[in-house]
């Protein structure tokens, strides 16, 4: 059970503090926590810390520290799950989670905590149940407008109507049970994949890992039923390869493992790959899946580096060729290449293949920014640097072909809008919801892949 819960800003200022059992310390534990956290030696984990019979367990979320203390030897999995559920809940009710939203909605947060935890025991964390008890309305910084295009997200999603979903529309609070609900009948469905890749220096692929999630954020009245149709060729497990229902449409979409939220009804999953559910308002992860090793499509990026290193003069020349293997119509956004450099590198001269790119030295690494990379295109950069010779090192030393210490591995970060690496797509999202009045519910379906760790050894 939980003794205390508090939220700290990234600078350690307490935003929320609640004592559930009155059995330990006082408000200064928040300060104590922050002092312990910042004074921790590098090799120790801050996730669980101990001080005088009290355990601090925390997560970092949106720049905030969400911390619980307990004196019992509790289940760490359960507590971490609770903390991330709390983060989602607070996001649901305050619109989004951040220092600003929390401090604007202190009353609401305390009200929520009162209902979620009683004497340190979890009562309920369901957005739906809680709506019955929460009286405070969320304070939002500015009114939301669906067509406020000034805040269009980085990846505007295409739906059947080819509209653009303003990103802020998804970050508004769920409505309390008393307010008028006919206004904002919207539902957001995101298929998000995290890609982690490791490529050896000879170009061979050492590891591919895709972690996928289907996330749903619903503002429809609770209990309205919806059906999510997935790619028909979707199959689970290594052995089963589902025969395509449409011959000639390529192989099946396969994942290794899949798990569903307990709300999901799978009656139609076997036969038609349809998920049925009656989601409560708020955010929900409908499905999680993993895929490793064989990807149906080629990797989005290949990097061809060549390094010339003259140990005598300390001149280091790195030529990087980046090829984007996405389909021609697709593009990658916010591509950044990060290449750690030998210690003490000074001066950089660069020749880049297009003017919108940027490259600079930052924190002992080369940072090459490519705001937009079209599928099928090839970009290159030539970088020249001076590496000071470490004192005491004989200049004849080792052969000059070996790359200098501290160079590489290169890592890429990027976003791939409208692209899933596994190939999984949402075919349709159907609502069995009868709108009150004229307002048809808006449905936003988005697909996105982004890099988790995309590492290329040099």
């Amino acid at each position, binding site marked *: 059970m939980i003794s205390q819960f508090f939220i700290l800003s990234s600078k350690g200022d307490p935003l929320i503090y609640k004592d559930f059992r009155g059995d330990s310390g006082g408000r200064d534990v928040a300060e104590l926590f922050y002092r312990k956290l910042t004074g921790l030696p590098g090799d120790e984990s801050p996730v669980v810390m101990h001080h005088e019979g009290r355990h601090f367990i925390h997560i970092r979320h949106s720049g905030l520290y969400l911390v619980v203390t307990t004196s019992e*030897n509790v289940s760490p999995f359960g507590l971490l799950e609770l*903390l991330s559920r709390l983060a989602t809940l607070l996001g649901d009710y305050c619109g989004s989670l951040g220092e600003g939203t929390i401090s604007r909605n202190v009353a609401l947060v305390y009200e929520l905590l009162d209902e979620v935890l009683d004497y340190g025991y979890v009562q309920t964390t369901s957005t739906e149940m809680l709506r019955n008890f929460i009286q405070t309305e969320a304070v939002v910084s500015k009114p939301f407008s669906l067509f406020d295009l000034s805040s269009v997200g980085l990846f505007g999603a295409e739906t059947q109507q080819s509209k653009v979903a303003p990103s802020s529309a998804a970050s508004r609070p769920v409505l309390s049970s008393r307010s008028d609900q006919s206004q904002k009948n919207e539902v957001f469905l995101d298929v998000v994949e*995290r890609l982690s890749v490791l490529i050896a220096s000879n170009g061979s692929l050492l*590891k591919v890992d895709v972690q996928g999630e289907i996330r749903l954020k619903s503002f429809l009245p609770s209990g309205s039923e919806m059906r999510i149709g997935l790619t028909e060729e979707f199959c689970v497990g290594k052995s089963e390869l589902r025969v395509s229902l449409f011959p000639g449409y390529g192989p099946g979409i396969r994942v290794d493992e899949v798990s569903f939220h*307990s709300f999901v009804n799978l009656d139609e999953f076997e036969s038609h790959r349809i998920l049925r559910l009656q989601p409560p308002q708020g955010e929900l992860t409908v499905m999680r899946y993993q895929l490793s090793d064989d990807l149906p499509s080629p990797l989005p990026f290949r990097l061809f580096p060549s390094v010339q290193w003259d140990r005598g003069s300390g001149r280091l020349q790195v030529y990087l060729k980046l090829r984007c293997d996405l389909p021609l119509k697709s593009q990658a956004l916010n591509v950044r290449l990060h290449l750690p450099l030998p210690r003490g590198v000074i001066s950089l001269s660069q020749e880049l293949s297009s003017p919108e790119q940027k490259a600079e030295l930052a924190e002992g690494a080369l940072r090459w920014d490519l705001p937009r990379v079209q599928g099928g295109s090839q970009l290159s950069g030539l970088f020249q640097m001076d590496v000071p010779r470490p004192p005491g090192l004989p200049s004849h030393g080792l052969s000059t072909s070996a790359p200098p210490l501290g160079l590489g591995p290169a890592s890429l970060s990027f976003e791939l809008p409208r692209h899933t690496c596994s190939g999984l797509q949402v075919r349709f999202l159907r609502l069995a919801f009868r709108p009150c009045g004229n307002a048809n519910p808006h449905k936003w379906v988005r697909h996105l892949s982004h890099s988790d760790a995309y590492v290329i050894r040099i």
Partner: protein
Amino acid sequence: MSQKKRQKPVVWVEQILLKMLPHQDEEEPASYRGSSGSCPGTVRKMPYLGSEDVVKELKKALCNPHIQADRLRYRNVIQRVIRYMTQGLDMSGVFMEMVKASATVDIVQKKLVYLYMCTYAPLKPDLALLAINTLCKDCSDPNPMVRGLALRSMCSLRMSKLDQWGQAEVLNFLLRYQPRSEEELFDILNLLDSFLKSGSPGVVMGATKLFLILAKKFPHVQTDVLVRVKGPLLAACSSESRELCFVALCHVRQILHSLPGHFSSHYKKFFCSYSEPHYIKLQKVEVLCELVNDENVQQVLEELRGYCTDVSADFAQAAIFAIGSIARTYTDQCVQILTELLGLRQEHITTVVVQTFRDLVWLCPQCTEAVCQALPGCEENIQDSEGKQALIWLLGVHGERIPNAPYVLEDFVENVKSETFPAVKMELLTALLRLFLSRPAECQDMLGRLLYYCIEEEKDMAVRDRGLFYYRLLLVGIDEVKRILCSPKSDPTLGLLEDPAERPVNSWASDFNTLVPVYGKSRWATISKCHGAERCGPELPKTSSFAASGPLIPEENKERVQEVPDSGALMLVPNLQLTADYFEKTWLSLKVAHQQVLPWQGEFHPDTLQMALQVVNIQTIAMSRAGARPWKAYLSAQDDTGCLFLTELLWKPENSEMQISVKQNETRTETLKSFISVLETVIGTIEEIKS
């Protein structure tokens, strides 16, 4: 199953369980039972639209006061509702009206309404609360039939479906339950199976722990559960949440202690990515060390090698130490990588490589030659105390194989005045004296200078005393110096004793899904000690003193082990084959040459002891099964001169001590002493590990 023996909480637990379980009788695709079983939507079989008109009409009828007044007509309408319900139409819309209909004296009508309520209560939990009122009232009805009916209905209201928090809580509570029979145990396990597939990591881990604890006598069930939890754990290890990832990694390490091969095929999941925080990278490196096997060793070493040149010196050093620990099994490959790293001539790398070499030659003497060849030139890139100590130790112990050893040590002697670390000076004294024994001509002069400096000019008392000690030792004569300083140069058994492989699952099952694996066992011990001592004094000095005493312990151990073979040069032959008959005959014919008692607390695992003894070439002839009281074991060993040692271990739990009786076929007190001390060391180590 007799109701009498059952205690109250157990009944409660079973009821809760019943409520938690997915209802198997409902139609669901078999393969996804676990995830959809608790979904309220499964009751309905009709398309979700339609039946509206019927509901509207029935609603009207139920509300009609004329119908309500006519008992038969009212009952008829209710019957129609039930009929539609049975056909699969969604009748939840009239719940309110039906609850009202339950307040009647007509028992038939009551029964019908209760049937309806039990079906739809899960869909309308808030309205079902209203029904509870009526049910409670009925429970005090004078008519026993009404009372019984109400009670039964209340029990089958499946509205309190437990959410994940409730499930985790109940799973935790169930840990206290002792199944009365094997049959019951497997019934429980079967019922709980679906929780292993839950989407919530807390529930999955809670269920796993319960399985491990309940099946403590069925290792194959435990292994099976750990196989099934592999997927969820690996998913948590690559979770977006770093905190969850860390906790999962700690648990992976815990499992690896018992099942070393468990995650070997998933080794790539534990490769680090540059953006991860330090503490996750360190855990992953530890995991990689533990899951290495013949198939993946090449790839794992390549990966670790990449980390050795990481920008973060701490991480690079951790990777080098990791390669060092893999080197205990895959010596040649690792030594080659480590040697290549020396070529980079980086201080922070060289120092750790040399320390790794020092530890390695002690455990794996076969790599001594390769290490000695790699050492020349290292001294240029070592500045810190630890690295210098390691290098000096290596030069002292293996100096006869390193041509320029005396000259490197001479450099250290020249600069001893400016040396800041007393530990380095101590090491230098010992190393030089050792090298003097094998290469006297080259060392005599500088040894004299060093001793002079240490005795006459040194300010540090420990160094001075050590200098004086060696000086007096030299006065006694060179043979005495040899006897004291020329200890063995390696001890392969130490490594195996340090990490006894494959600890039984039961040794940590109760720690699973708690904070213990997250803190690590040793830190947890200090934490619970601090906690138990009721916050005696400020904590910070306590931890710092612990940290300071940390490195001392292994050093003491080392010396103890060093001294053991010293005194008698005992060499036990491996693979001694002795039949039980022969043992018995010999045992009976001999007298006890030595008997002593060692402290021994609590339970232990005989297999661990047997394995540890095997390592030092003491064979186990026979022993009682685990848990027997008193517990006995018979051991045999033979040294290289043919002297037999027969031993009886007798453990009496009531005295918490282990009695050792040794018999010898030739009376030789010197070797007997050595044998006893070897035995003591092994038993002492096991006792330490256990606690």
